[in-house]
């Protein structure tokens, strides 16, 4: 057997929906979902900060739940519906209230943890439209930020919650 066929026999074909678009890719079973998104689909907005599930930078929404894409194999995401930071903007390119909040309230500095923070905060606001600062801190405590000291992030999530409530009214 040639090398090529040995390699291709290891590959699995998966189909997944990312930001409303369907993709079919051949991946090695050991390939992390974070690498599938970044290297195969070239969606580099999802960042990898630790590859052992602590920093939260790689957080995405998978079937409505925030997951660490470095702790999921690509093959586990077969048939999954995924949203990454690239999918947060509205179709006409308007920033999501959270993205706006992070801009308004200086919720980011280097921006590396930001995509994961946004996805986690997004999940929080879907389930709790009016969180207290304490609840926001609790919700984002699995996402590490080394630049901001978190205060700007908490301000940003509060800002977005308010804006989203006002829009809903």
């Amino acid at each position, binding site marked *: 057997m040639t090398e090529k066929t040995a390699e291709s026999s290891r590959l699995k074909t998966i189909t997944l929906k990312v930001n409303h678009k369907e993709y079919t890719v051949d991946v*090695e079973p050991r390939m992390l979902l974070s690498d599938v998104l970044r290297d195969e689909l070239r969606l*580099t907005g*999802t*960042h990898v900060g630790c*590859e052992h599930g602590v920093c939260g930078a790689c957080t995405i929404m998978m079937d409505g739940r925030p997951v660490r894409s470095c702790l999921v194999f690509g093959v586990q995401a077969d048939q999954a519906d995924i949203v990454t930071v*690239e999918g947060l903007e509205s179709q006409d390119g308007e920033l999501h209230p959270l993205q706006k909040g992070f801009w308004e309230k200086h919720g980011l500095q280097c921006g590396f943890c930001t995509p994961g923070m946004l996805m986690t905060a997004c999940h929080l606001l879907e389930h709790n439209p009016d969180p207290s600062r304490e609840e926001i801190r609790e919700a984002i*405590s699995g996402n590490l930020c080394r630049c*901001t*000291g978190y205060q700007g992030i908490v301000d940003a999530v509060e800002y977005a919650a308010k804006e989203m409530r006002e829009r809903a009214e």
Partner: protein
Amino acid sequence: MKYIGQSMKRKIDPRLTSGQGRYIADIHMDGALSAAFLRSTHAHARITEIDLEQARNLPGVVAVFGPDEAADLPCLPVVFPNPNLISVTQRPLDRTVHHVGEPVAMVIAASRYIAEDAVDLIKIKYEKLPAVSFLEDAARPGAPLAHQHMASNLAMHISQSIGNAHEKMKEADVVVSHRFEIGRVSCLPIETRGLLAKWSHHQPEPVLEVYAATQSQHEMRKILSETFRISEHQVRVIAPDVGGAFGAKAPFYVEDMLVPWASLQVGAPVSWIEDRMEHMMSCIHEREQIHEATLGVTREGKIVAVIDKGLASTGAYVPWGVIVPIITSSLIPGPYRVTDYACEIDVFYTNTVPLAPYRGAGRPQAAMILNRLLDEAAHVLNMDPLEIKRRNLIQADEFPYRTGLLSRDGKPQIYDSGNFPKLVETVQLEGEYARWRKLQEEYRKQGRNVGIGTVVCIENTGFGNYEGATVRVEDTGEVTVFTGAATQGQGHETSLAQVAAEVLDVPLEKVIVREGDTSLFPYGTGTFASRIATIAGNAVYKAAQKVKQHALRLAAHELNVPENALELAGGYVRKKDEPGIHITLGALSHAAKGGAPGKTYDLPTDPMLEATDYFAPEGAAITSMSDMAVVEVEPETLQIKVLHYLSVHDSGKLLNPLIVTGQYQGGISNGIGNALYEEIVYDREGQLLTSSLMDYLVPSSTEIPEMTIHHIETPSPLNPLGVKGAGESGSIPVLAVIQSAVQDALRHTGVKIHKIPVKPLYLKEQLSKAALEQGEVAIQ
């Protein structure tokens, strides 16, 4: 002012919040290969056998390099030479390893997955050598040697003094001593290091292009050009978006040499992205120092003399000289009037990751020493700890203040300006210090251990040598600013744009700052030492002033109006009393190019509406701060909770208060991690025990308290904008203020807090010791 001093939202944010950032790992280059390193599992050992064959034979592997292949590569350069320093720098893929995590072989493969598979196939045998890991072990006579060619582990002896502290100490009414054991930490940006190197041979000379997560692209270019013996114009280093740095990305590492070298060997682009475990075991650490310090004061609490004796680790090498303990030795007196001071610090090599500046760079250690000694003296004198600090401050009318010490640049240390008493007054007022003292008493009656910590300290910011900037008006009327700096989240694209917008009176959105690329500006020192706002900011200011003069002269010519009748406003040059007579900056830029080809150039100004200028400060601008923390120690678990945190900062004139406040908050949060949670731990043999984020505790949003920040603005007389640095200052007071508060909370138990970080387990040990000592006293 319209732009400078305004809290303007950052220009970069819409891009970074929508996943459009371009960090080093995001850059895709066709045909790029991936590198992975085999790293030493021993702290000190000689490689006796290394077999790369099996790794080389793995499908997908392009090359494997070991010590033999890399034998001709030079040691890393000595970045901060010092005549008293015995410098040992790292050799890429050396046969002898000096700390766990040092690269010993390198695989280049089609993917990182395959490269890591191949790393596992490398067979290697080591002969273990005696290793030294603990700082106090390294200092003992007869200790194992970190480097076998040295006679001892001593890298440098640092000595600083004012007056005669040993004699003067005898005159003190009260003498207190304290031991400080300061643990080692990692800078830990959320983005790790990484680079992508590509050689091109399609031009008259070979050209090396390197994308790197670096704080200092020009320094990297210099070292690469020396390594490959090509001139600097053949090397281009680009820092794309960089995901935080805090010092980690300032030094030049062996991987920075090996990746471009490997790219040359294999004839293809090579990328390497550090993983987190590699970061913990190969990227610089800081803070580790031990001090025994003594303070003598009068009955009134006036400082008589200060004596410090310290040990500092530099790890296995000196990637950044031994700047850190030098800074510590020069800043222990800090904001206080100290006439007699003696400091001796011995710096030792150990078989651990090298130490180099992490945000704060030796200053958090310095700030601890005298502030904590003053706490202890206040306790003996039955005086308020903030009051004793207030009594010893340098006064606002004493600037410029000569301390009698040498600064880190070897020149006499002079403080340019400040108002330290006002910092303390603001803490008392805004922190409601008196109210918290009353509350503390009430809490104590309820059995709650609440403590209040205070600190006053300084940062010498904005060191040279210089930075430059080019400010150019484009034909579109936009203004482009090119600098030799690079940003890792500090928001230069906004704050530096504000400076140009102010001088030229153009809307902020029309100013584009370009940096982080050696092809954009000839030279830059780098983004560290809280220097960019001060140095690059003033370079932008000076260059923009030149452009302004240029625009006025050219407009006078074009509009046929005297120059002094003109002004810049909203992107135009217009007649002051007749605004209808005007010309846009874009039209002036077009005119400055001199008209059609072949036309004789007859304008009264040089071609192009642009100017380049440099700013070289004559000395450091002194940023000062006073922090107050209230902590509670839970009696059973000994968990420490920060109930209240206030910081009053004086960074001179602020370019953008929103950004500066963010810098302080981030610095304080790094400080809280450092003070309460984070510690890099080695065992005695030099094995790293904290190599993941499961064992190295980075504080999350539930550990970091809400912080109240107040600004005082005492302009620096050393630069036209009056600014001082702000990048690192947030982190500097925190070790002192947290230890001060915990000590205060537990003062009644007789416990002595020496260590940083202060963790529950440590408190438990210290409390047991205190109970034992008190028991013995009782028995006597």
